[in-house]
């Protein structure tokens, strides 16, 4: 599709959506949001680029192949479950690291956040792989009537 309005709009919308997705990921620990929904919003931004600028824009935006993003995401999510072993706690127990930033400000970093980042990347990679496959693969054994 080559629509000037869509391309111009996408240039503004896609970065905003990506920002929103990170915001959703960040607040998702205690409030509605999280890695899954954040990942879907980010994927929408990337898909929008794909619609406006063609499928190769999806690959360009992700830099690495979508499957690699998904694979890294799965590994991060699994790794998030493991630090509990060092603390002698059961599998997947949430652990917090509270960084003191001075002036009474505390930055809580946690394994659930790490897990959510893993989910975020898995969703982006997985859905982008699906979209890219649908955009690029030739249809199977030629088109048959009715389907």
């Amino acid at each position: 599709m080559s629509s000037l309005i869509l391309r111009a709009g996408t240039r503004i919308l896609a970065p905003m959506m990506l920002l929103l997705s990170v915001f959703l990921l960040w607040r998702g620990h205690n409030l509605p949001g999280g890695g899954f929904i954040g990942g879907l919003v980010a994927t929408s931004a990337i898909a929008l680029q794909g619609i406006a600028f063609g499928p190769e824009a999806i690959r360009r935006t992700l830099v690495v192949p979508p499957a690699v993003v998904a694979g890294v995401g799965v590994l991060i999510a699994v790794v998030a479950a493991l630090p509990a072993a060092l603390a002698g706690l059961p599998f997947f127990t949430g652990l917090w690291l509270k960084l003191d930033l001075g002036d009474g400000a505390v930055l809580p970093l946690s394994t659930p956040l790490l897990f959510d980042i893993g989910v975020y990347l898995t969703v982006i990679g997985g859905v982008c792989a699906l979209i890219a496959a649908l955009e690029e693969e030739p249809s199977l054994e030629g088109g048959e009537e009715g389907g």
Partner: protein
Amino acid sequence: MGGWLAALVLVVPMLSAGATTLAHAAPRLQARLSLAGAFALLAVSVALLAVVLSDGMVVLQSGNWAAPFGIAFAVDTLGAVMTVIAAVTGVACLAFGLGEIGETERRAWFHPLSHVLLLGVCGAFLTGDLFNLYVWFEVMLIASFGLMTVGGTKAQIDGAVKYVALNLVATLMFLLAVALIYGLTGTLNFADIARSVPAVANTGVLTAAATLLLAAFGMKAAVFPLFFWLPAAYHTPLVSVSAVFAGLLTKVGVYALIRAFTLLFTHDPDWTHTLLLWIAGLTMVTGVLGAAAQSEMRRILSWHIISQIGYMVMGLALATPLGIVGSVFYLVHHIIVKANLFLIAGVAARLTGSMELKRIGGLYRSAPWLGVLFFIPAFSLAGFPPLSGFWAKLVLVRAALEIGSWWIAAAALVTGLLTIYSMTKIWGEAFWKPHPAGEAAARPLAEAPPAMLAPIAALAAGTVVIGLFAQPFYVVAERAARELLDPAAYIATVLGEVR
């Protein structure tokens, strides 16, 4: 740290799936990672079984949220044994896959999907939570849909669509039952449901929920009359994929049935267990008759999966200690034998050019050792002494005779006899008769890659070992049955009232 071992059984396939995804661009590395992952899964599941056998049940309260509020994983002897067998099947079929798959199949994510499938299967065997079981079923379903279509041919997609559509019906019934059970008992933790069931006043709805679960799991297990998706789908995918499916997937359904009708729903055995007994008998007989009508190797074997499921359900339906022992023993024996038969059919087709019995032959002359390798699982399936199937059937038939269920014992014996008919048909057509396209059309065994033959030989050796040294396996099965028939200990361990 038994809990962490149980967690590792889930972590290892997850890591393998992630790692093989990342190695997608490097075929050799991906194959090595995949096989290493399967062996690692085997190692941790064997370690888990060892812990369960020496220290008793392992409970993992994931996230340190105590049952019934968090998701509990509860590993008793049956769960641990099933995980080991799943890992064995995984190793065998992935090794076979290395010899079988080409670049198209590899590019279609054969390795990551296989590990996701193993993850789903192991999760289902370990979980102690009804909704979590549903999640693992979905993981399996999604992975198996991907695996079935890995070759991308029209027949495969046709089979996969039927498979998924019919399995989704089972999934819906499962969810409906979950909702009913949650409404009645206020919990989805297995142990907590089992504790709450006797106090439920509305036994009519409870039985309805139990029957819905029976139908849902029954469909996954492919019992009569819900088996029609299986023969429609299992002959289409890659051989290594269909061998994993044949070995494991329906058995997850049987496992879920065993769990549901020993732990959760024993409040109305006159209805549920009688129903199960009828289903068992009809499944055995229809399955074996269906097989007799087929002439394609994998179709014959697919129908035999159905008839064999009947045996496993039969032991559960009898609900006597010996019956449950028989079911557990049968599960283990069957997974090894059935996966192996599919692999052998794959090699036979590779050497002769087809799965269709009419179009092949001459294998005994060209590849006599394949004949020996076929003979072992085939006659174990039919129940020839001293192979593993003989002991499995012996225990079940004895269990039936003990409580005077003559007709189910008769059905089991007749089914065994008809199984021999099908196996001799494959023997006579594929091995004994000359190849219709001339002697040279049947290739020698040396032309099959070693990656394909090694798992077949190993699984056949396993069948012989279980047959000749049945006692230790029987003892473990007996222990699993004892635990299944004493839900009080399971409930106490999971909910932490003892210790």
